[in-house]
């Protein structure tokens, strides 16, 4: 069994009257693709927000590689090796895709220069490789603003990959993508993750995607984890089918 | 140092273009560049002065100009702000090649322009700015002040106060917070301390220049009840202060001294009560007791009134003085040059020590030691007279400039400290308004 990468214990948070996390315990294992499913408002995104430091839990701790990262700043957590991709792609829209990537590369290295040209960074070939891996290299010199939604999503993930993370958290990687493209994108993505040896956690609504790409599934319901298991186990559970998938 | 060479070359080019020395033919016109406020609060002085300048130039040209040469005016706006003012002044001197400049109203502008005039070697008459320090810190060749400065102006007001209200015990000051407000109080309070040391200063208030509201200051003065309140404010600020104070009874409670209030009298109209002491920055008053029957003086005032709708105020007379000084200087220079047209430098030589009759009051002398003008001072007290919608000055005293101006070479504050109580006992002629 692979080691534990990220470990959440007793995470609690509430917004006014809404309980978004009510004692979440979850381990993310090295090398796996963990899917998080659950109805809207169950607290899935909140969990990602807490894990990456965007929100501070009212109780509980998050450990990453044995280090307590609870309530650290997002950029500190990023530096430790957790990258994040967003439900709505978060790009630098006025810059080209390559510039986006190079900003990410420069961020990873720290101490960015104020005098050397960005376009002359030695990371250019590596970024080209990553864009190629994700299948968007033809857009490299285009402004991010000009890209269609599906491609933006992939660039968003590439930005995270450029950080060379140990763990990648993705919020609905295929939402907003035409259903005909979903499979292709997930294929590209999982191949890339495997190649880069990145562990991933992804929030997902589409059970087909979960079945095909997840090693493990955690089911969220009203701020609690209802069930954890392999996709087959979880999706066979009648309670999960009724409450979460709505069949 | 390539650019230095370029600069030197450039300087040579400039020198060739600008210096117009040697035997002079009579030029087609004498160009005068005038810096005055056309915008901002001080345009209450600048705009009437501009009207006066245009009127005087017209009259002068009708009579054949100066030495047979007509004058031509160009104006720049002091209100445009520091940088624009200096660049425009340079443009006027370097591009339009004016023969003389009159600059400026505010001491701030004078501080900026006087060194520039000296650099550009153009004769400049400081026609209205009052800061004594400008001519005290350095001897200039090209800069002259064709009127008094703050020291005799404030001293005259103070002596008038000491003569007419010798028993006051407390005084408060409300001045605008800028050089004139501060300096005039420094002059006044230094002289006061020297001549009447027992007076207590109960409040020193310097509200922001252009403050729209003095209610709080007035409340405080109403509560403090000083015998005398001095203000050297002017323009809209003085109007506001006087009206707000009048409305709330402060003008009746304390004796008000309006250091340079002559310029606001007409505008304030009925809102100005009787009994306020008013200074005039010179011996300027459209009913000047020694000149009021002078035909030319009357004609000037009438013409100005017809043109602008108001009687002349002191900046108008200051502008006229600058013209008189220029005319006298040129006449003197032409005479000294054997009737030939003088060079610019010869004109500047002639300006030193010139005495000229203003026609609007007593004559003015440009003291040769420091180019400071010696100008008499008129102070009076407000009183109603039939036939006027506003108050007139009564019990006017006219002060001799030689007595109340600090001698050349001694800084005014140092000189004021040496004054004795007896100084205020000097003989000064008093004139009733007729």
């Amino acid at each position, binding site marked *: 069994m692979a080691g534990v990468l990220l470990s959440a214990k007793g995470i609690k948070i509430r917004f006014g009257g809404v309980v978004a996390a009510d004692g979440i315990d979850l381990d993310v294992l090295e090398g796996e693709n963990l899917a998080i499913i659950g109805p809207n408002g169950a607290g899935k995104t909140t969990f990602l927000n807490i894990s990456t430091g965007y929100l501070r839990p009212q109780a509980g701790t998050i450990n990453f590689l044995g280090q307590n990262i609870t309530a650290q700043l997002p950029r500190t957590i990023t530096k430790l090796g957790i990258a*994040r991709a967003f439900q709505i792609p978060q790009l630098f829209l006025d*810059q080209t895709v390559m510039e986006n990537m190079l900003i990410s590369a420069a961020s990873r290295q720290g101490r960015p220069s104020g005098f050397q040209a960005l376009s002359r960074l030695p990371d250019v070939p590596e970024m080209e490789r990553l864009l190629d891996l994700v299948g968007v290299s033809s857009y490299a010199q285009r402004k991010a603003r000009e890209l269609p939604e599906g491609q933006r999503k992939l660039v968003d993930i590439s930005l995270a990959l450029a950080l060379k993370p140990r763990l990648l958290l993705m919020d609905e990687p295929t939402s907003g993508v035409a259903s005909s493209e979903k499979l292709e994108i997930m294929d590209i993505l999982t191949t890339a993750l495997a190649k880069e040896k990145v562990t991933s956690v992804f929030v997902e609504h589409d059970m087909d995607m979960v079945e095909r790409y997840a090693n493990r599934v955690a089911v969220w319901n009203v701020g609690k984890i209802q069930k954890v298991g392999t996709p087959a186990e979880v999706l066979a559970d009648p309670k999960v089918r009724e409450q979460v998938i709505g069949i | 140092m390539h650019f230095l060479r370029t600069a030197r070359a450039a300087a040579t080019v*400039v020198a060739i273009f600008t210096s117009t020395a040697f035997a002079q033919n009579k030029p087609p016109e004498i160009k005068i560049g005038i810096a005055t406020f056309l915008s901002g609060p001080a345009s209450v002085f600048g705009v009437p002065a501009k009207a006066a300048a245009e009127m005087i130039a017209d009259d002068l040209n009708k009579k054949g100009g100066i030495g047979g040469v007509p004058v031509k005016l160009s104006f720049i706006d002091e209100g445009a702000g520091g940088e624009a003012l200096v660049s425009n002044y340079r443009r006027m001197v370097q591009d339009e090649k004016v023969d003389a400049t009159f600059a400026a109203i505010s001491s701030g502008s004078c501080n900026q322009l006087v060194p520039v005039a000296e650099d550009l070697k153009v004769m400049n008459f400081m026609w209205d700015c009052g800061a004594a320090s400008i001519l005290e810190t350095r001897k200039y060749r090209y800069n002259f002040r064709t009127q008094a400065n703050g020291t005799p102006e404030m001293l005259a007001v103070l002596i008038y106060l000491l003569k007419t209200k010798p028993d006051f015990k407390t005084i408060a000051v409300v001045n605008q917070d800028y050089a004139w407000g501060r300096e005039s109080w420094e002059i006044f309070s230094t002289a006061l301390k020297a001549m009447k040391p027992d007076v207590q200063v109960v409040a020193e208030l310097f509200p922001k220049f252009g403050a729209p509201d003095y209610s709080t200051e007035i409340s405080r003065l109403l509560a403090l009840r000083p015998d005398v309140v001095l203000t050297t404010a002017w323009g809209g600020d003085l109007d506001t202060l006087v009206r707000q104070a009048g409305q709330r009874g402060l003008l009746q409670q304390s004796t008000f001294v309006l250091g340079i209030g002559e310029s606001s009298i007409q505008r304030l109209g009925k809102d100005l009560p009787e009994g306020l002491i008013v200074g005039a920055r010179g011996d300027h008053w459209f009913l000047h007791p020694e000149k009021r029957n002078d035909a030319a003086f009357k004609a000037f005032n009438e013409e100005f009134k017809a043109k602008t709708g108001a009687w002349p105020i002191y900046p108008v007379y200051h502008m006229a003085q600058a013209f008189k000084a220029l005319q006298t200087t040129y006449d003197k220079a032409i005479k000294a040059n054997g009737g030939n047209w003088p060079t610019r430098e010869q004109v500047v030589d002639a300006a030193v020590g010139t005495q000229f009759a203003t026609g609007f009051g007593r004559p003015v002398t440009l003291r040769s030691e420091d180019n400071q003008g010696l100008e008499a001072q008129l102070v009076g007290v407000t009183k109603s007279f039939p036939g006027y919608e506003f108050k007139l000055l009564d019990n006017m005293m006219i002060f001799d400039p030689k007595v109340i101006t600090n001698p050349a070479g001694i800084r005014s504050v140092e000189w004021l400290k040496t004054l004795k109580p007896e100084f205020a006992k000097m003989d000064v002629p008093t004139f009733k308004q007729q």
Partner: protein
Amino acid sequence: MAGRIKPITAAAAIFFLVSAVAPLFVSSWATLFALILAKGVVVLGIVLLLQAGQVSFGHAMFFAVGAYTAAFWGRYVGGGDIVLFLVLGAISSTVSGLIVGLFVVRYRDIFFGMLNLAFSMVLWSLLEKMYPYTNGADGIRVARPSLLGFSFTPETFQYLILYISLLTAIAAFYGVQRYLESPLGHMLRAIKSNETRLEYLGTSARRVLLVGYVISAFLGGIGGTLVAMIQQIATPEFGYWTKSGEFVFIAILGGGAHAFGAFAGAAMFECVRFYAAAHLADSWQLILGVVLIVIILYAPNGLIGLRQRYRQSGLGGS
């Protein structure tokens, strides 16, 4: 991209060349161009912050800091040298930029603008009110400084200061250009489009903005020192909010997208003011206001944007 930058760089080169040569023929242009260049340096700082989408409505405070550094030196120490003034102005504005920056980089958009305005108004009121030290509203005269010990006649000095301003402007232009193309510069631009993402890449947006802010304060200070030497005076008006507004105005006028916009805008602004003041003494504000409205409504990328638009339409679209 290279094709987009190069013609502008060429335009900048022509502009700098004209500033160097034209005043040799019309002497009153020496001061005019020196002012344009000095103000252009200040506006470069505004352009820098515009990259991050931030508008400082108080940047005149650094302009005033630079100017008063020279003025205070002259008043309390005496004498002065152009190089010394520039170095001191650079130091004082950088330090004050760092101090103010540590506070303001925590804020964005209108709050960033407001806090800057507040700081600048505090400085302005102090300069106005500390009359015994600052001469209040009248300001402090700055005597003509020497250069490395050599003193100059007024005629030479106006050219000297022009070429000093020119060198400073070229250096600043080059430096800012390089900075904007660098990773830090790109991160600055990233703050405008997506600050959250920048944080999620592990970069502190505040630190990136702080570097930009300090550089822009430095440029403001240098420009202020230059203007104080050109005008030979420093007044509180240098730090008043309308001055800050003027700098932002110039940046938008020229176009905030490129460093040259600062100089294009400054040239336009000063020329309109100079000639409008000469011919229509009473309406230069009106003219500038109308020019600004036309630019904002019809050429939102400023003067340099006009050229680009023309070029694009010339290429026949695509």
